[in-house]
């Protein structure tokens, strides 16, 4: 649910990073924050526990410049991945324009990936969205780990609608901007239809 202000010629969109706990959602945001010019970003807000687990959300406002005379701002949010924070996750999906699912490539996290993906479908549905229609990109994170599940296997299990899919190593920035760009593109195209 983007916000278009014709008076100040601004457009604001909301993108949510979803996925299992410790999958690297916050790391994606941190990398984007580090690599963005100060004039194009706001503060990175993290509502986290003392052990750096996301408690409610992380938030990063990003200014991407102008399209057709409109300043384009993306508000990036992450959800807490841990299963018992479901109420918070539901709240953050409210009014979302695009979703990025950050999957963990480790074998041991396959169940958690699938559970989180199911949870995404449910929570989108409860907010009145359909995953089949929402701008969406998939990221396989932690590709640098020795025991990473092969791309094809992950793809078969987690890719649901031929959405753009990226391999990533979030702390090094591999695949981070590519994933964001893929979903931003869909969001802007979606706006052009309205």
């Amino acid at each position, binding site marked *: *649910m*983007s*916000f*278009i*202000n*014709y*008076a*100040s010629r601004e*457009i*604001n969109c*909301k993108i949510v990073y979803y996925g299992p706990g410790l999958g690297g959602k916050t790391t994606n945001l941190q990398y984007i924050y580090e690599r963005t*010019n100060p004039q194009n970003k*706001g*503060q990175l*807000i993290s*509502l986290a526990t003392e052990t750096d687990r996301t408690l*409610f*959300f992380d*938030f990063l*406002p990003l200014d*991407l*410049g102008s*399209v*057709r*005379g*409109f300043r*384009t701002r993306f*508000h990036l949010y992450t959800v807490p991945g841990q299963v018992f924070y479901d*109420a*918070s996750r*539901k*709240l*953050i999906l*409210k*009014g979302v324009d695009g979703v990025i699912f950050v999957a963990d490539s480790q074998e041991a996290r396959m169940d958690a990936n699938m559970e989180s993906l199911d949870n995404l479908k449910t929570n989108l549905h409860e907010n009145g969205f359909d995953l089949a229609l929402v701008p969406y990109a998939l990221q396989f994170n932690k590709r640098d780990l020795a025991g990473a599940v092969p791309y094809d296997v992950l793809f078969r299990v987690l890719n649901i609608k031929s959405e753009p899919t990226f391999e990533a190593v979030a702390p090094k920035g591999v695949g981070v*901007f590519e994933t964001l*760009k893929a979903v*931003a*593109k869909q969001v*802007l*195209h979606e*706006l*052009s*239809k*309205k």
Partner: protein
Amino acid sequence: MTMFGPNLVVYEEEFERINAVLARLWMDANAKIVFLVDKNGQQIAAKGDLEKVDATSLASLTAGNVAATDGLARLIGEKEFTILFHEGERDNIHISIVGQRLILVVIFDERSSLGLVRLRVRKAAAELEEVLTQMASKAAEEGQAPASPFAEITDEDIDALFTE
């Protein structure tokens, strides 16, 4: 919420009216900062001493705060809590819901009082609801929103956003 369609669109005329309401509230309530946020965390308009605060983060956290409180309300069987108040040593924050969709935030210190803020907010909220109704009827009149500024956006336009 559906009365506005999927996206919140604000035009010049309503934007000016909103700004005028906020400016008056800011003065009448003796507030430091007054701002209006969409429930999704987008800042719509603001008035006051904004240079010292990070308005974007304020907007997002306010919306998170309201969303969490809404969740609490539903858990105990309330529809919503329409007013939230945070009291600090110096500054206080008064948060109220306007027209179910917007959040009106007033930050004030000892030069004002909770009573005064509540009184002035009530009046401003009523005026803002009028503007909202006007926006809704405009949206309904025009059927769908007018052509999106992005109607003819190309892949090149989007790629250009990411080149640094």
